[in-house]
């Protein structure tokens, strides 16, 4: 188990390196001079040169790349070109926001999707099942930004029951923290519930049809235990995979949703970083996102390993 984790983690390193490298050189393609942006139009060429030097931009891209890599190894992600703030600090303030959002949404999607999936699997072919399936297809099609705008309108502007925007830190007020995340989490969670529901439904249905469930049924073991102990456990692998896959998609969704709800998370940092040509910030955010994706995939693998001993062998 531990060795699988290590192996997978080691395998992720070159992957991350490629992403990091791509992010760096992609940014190199952006036109324009960051110094000019930071200094404004009234700056002289000499001043811009000076700032370029401070940013390390006078060196060749390869040189710059190698030194950012060296810094990365020592845990230094550099400083923002625009605010001179440490990117590490920037990310560490933004990360909790996006993490709260992503984790809550993952929990919601997994719980709701699986619960409904089990329900439908137990009633395969019934009206409820068919309605749920149609609904699952429909919610999957709702873009998170559209539902986010709608939610703001309904709950924050029309009925004023929840805050429209903003983020309260967990350690400041857990209640307000939760309140500030309810609408964004709904906006992010709605669409992924669909695929998770469908996956859970078919996986649980398949497990319920399996011989081993018939075996426990033949022993007179109650339905609830058939479903929860044997059905769900065996259906876990595809469900966890679906949840993981959708969590990755959900991370991307944070860009628009954070924008709409004005949450100071990674997505907001990314957008402002990209628009401001703030290479270190963008690179940092991209790296964090990539690490997030890798961690999600790793977690999925490990969880499946725990839940399904057969997979562990491989």
């Amino acid at each position, binding site marked *: 188990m531990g060795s699988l984790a290590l192996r997978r983690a080691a395998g992720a390193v070159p992957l991350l390196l490629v992403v990091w490298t791509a992010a760096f050189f992609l940014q190199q393609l952006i*036109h324009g001079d960051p110094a000019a942006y930071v200094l404004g139009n009234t700056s002289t060429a000499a001043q811009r040169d000076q700032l370029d030097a401070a940013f390390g931009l006078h060196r060749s891209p390869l040189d710059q790349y190698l030194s950012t890599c060296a810094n990365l190894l020592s845990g230094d992600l550099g400083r923002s070109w625009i605010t001179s703030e440490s990117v590490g600090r920037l990310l560490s303030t933004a990360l909790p926001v996006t993490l709260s959002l992503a984790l809550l949404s993952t929990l919601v999607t997994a719980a709701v999707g699986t619960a409904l999936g089990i329900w439908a699997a137990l009633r395969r072919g019934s009206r409820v099942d068919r309605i749920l399936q149609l609904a699952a297809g429909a919610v*999957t099609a709702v873009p998170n930004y559209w539902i986010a705008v709608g939610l703001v309108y309904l709950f924050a502007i029309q009925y004023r029951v929840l805050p429209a925007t903003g983020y309260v830190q967990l350690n400041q007020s857990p209640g307000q923290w939760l309140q500030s995340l309810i609408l964004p989490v709904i906006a992010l969670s709605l669409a992924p519930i669909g695929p998770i529901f469908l996956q859970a439904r078919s996986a649980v249905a398949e497990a319920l049809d399996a011989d081993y469930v018939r075996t426990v049924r033949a022993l007179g073991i109650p339905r609830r235990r058939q479903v929860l102990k044997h059905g769900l456990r065996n259906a876990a692998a595809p469900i966890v995979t679906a949840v993981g896959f959708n969590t990755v998609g959900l991370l991307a969704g944070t*860009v628009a949703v954070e924008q709409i709800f004005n949450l100071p998370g990674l997505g907001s940092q990314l957008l402002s970083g990209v628009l401001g040509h703030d290479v270190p910030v963008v690179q940092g955010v991209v790296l964090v996102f990539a690490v997030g994706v890798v961690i999600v995939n790793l977690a999925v693998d490990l969880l499946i390993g725990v839940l399904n001993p057969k997979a562990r062998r491989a």
Partner: protein
Amino acid sequence: MSTVVHHADSPVGPAARAGRALATSPLTLTAVAWLVLVVLTSVFADQLAPFDPLTQNLTELLKPPSATHWLGTDSLGRDVLSRLMHGGDTLLWGAAEATAIAVALGLPAGLLSGYRGGIADAVISWLVDLTFAVPAFVVLVALAVIYPQNTAVMMAVLGVLGAGAATRLVRNSTRTVRDELFIDAARVSGLPLRTILFRHVLPTVVAPVIMLAATSMAICVIVLSSLSFLGLGGSPEAPSWGQMIYEASQNITVDSWLLVPPGAVLILTVIAFNLIANTVRDALPGGPTPRPVRHRRTVLAETAAQRPDADPQTLLGVHGLVVEFPSGPVVDGVTFAVRKGEILGLVGESGSGKTVTALAIPGLLPIDERITAGSVRFAGEELAGTTERRLSRVRGRGVAYIAQEPMAALDPCYTVGNQLRAALRHFGATRRAAAARTGDLLREVGISDPDRVMRCRPHQISGGIAQRVAIALALTGDPALLIADEPTTALDVTVQAAILDLFRNVVATGERALVLVSHDIGVVADVCDRVAVMYAGQIVEQGETDSVLGAPRHPYTRALLRSMPSLDTAGRLPVIPGSVPAPDAWPEGCRFAARCALATDACKKGPIPLMDVSGPSPRTTRCVRGHDLAPEPGR
């Protein structure tokens, strides 16, 4: 071992099946129609739209829907409907571009990776993993700044990243096909790789790729509209659905209506793509099983149900049992009884209904199969048509069931010990007693090293051990009746012999009975006291094993025995012509008549009743010529 996997129920390939599924589902047809509508309005928007999408009217701002402006006007007084009609163009083209690139890259890469394996597979799989680790949306956001308003470039990159998913899908489909025997056969036929790929592999990949393409279109439409929403998509003036939603969001406090038309059109379009994808997926092999049909309420033959069990030694009495699939009956009036201490063999070829009969007794039929008539009395209690709650009290304690595939019958997630203990606990044992009893049970079923086996999970033990464990599991509730459905078919003969010995021991106490379902007459000869021969849903002959096998009174039994190869002789075997009729092709008269050398016109006239041909022991046969077949050696 000999479980038959039906690869296809219809005589066409998967791609054609997917196409047919698309054409026959009204919902999917609607989806296709909607997409056609969207595409056509996009293409002919210039001709169809009532207004120029860019022409503003500053005196008609944010107007609600009216006769002139069916969907109202926006913040510059432009016609919302006209903008909607023009707004799908970029989106659909962009999505199509990304999808085309993803498929164009993923198809060959997936074929290569899946069919060749080895290093190519390793490299391609690594690249695929890479695309999954790239936060695609982040990359697109960055690209929007490098190539502002250049949808084509963004979609190309999205396509390249999406190629990962396409590659994986094609690879996995290809791998599945590659392992198919018909590919081996084609290779042995010396067909060149090109032919194999194009004629055998590619067609099976087509349907998954169509599914993927539809899904990809849905995702790309959402991604592209998200970019427009964030102001990164295209020209701000050009109508696009995402841009329109952005505009709506900017006016949300003033006019929330504007959010509706672009949202609805966008969502409907994505739904349409998803619906098509789902329909294709459902039509693929391994897709969801067909929806079960609502059953009629079970009407049991009251006369049968009320018949008292004559013999107090009778443990199980099945009378006139009819089991129906949605398509019709598969077990048709089966009657037999089992007494304590007895082993009854239920023998027949595939399609005879023997397994369905076995499952029907403890009420374990799959969701779409149901007892529609007849009686199943166990120890005086009627089991047919009763509630799941009452059945579950009988199961395990009264009737236990042992399945054909021992591996599949044990939950792969739990250890053997865990499963046994859980069952014992269910039957009321204390934790401590359960732990102790587990070892004893395993020893009882002939496992010499119970402690070790207890710690194993099903995949860690051999088939023979697994079947012993399954039998131990069935014994946890100390049942009076065991039903074993082809319990040795999946096992090697040397193991089979040991398991059969075990069964004999289990029943040896005289208090238990066993119904053994098998297609192997040798197995029946080995352990069964009595045998019921089934053919096409009916019992055609029943009696004590040695008399039935020694002097069959039904032509089917006789022919079957004759057609068995023997260890002692070689050479041509007497054959039964034709094959077992499917349930929907059961004839009115004798169901074996078409294959029977002795058939006469009388055989085909109407249902043949069971005829009592008892000699020294009770004996029935379902043959009008049962008496003519009087004692003749079976072989």
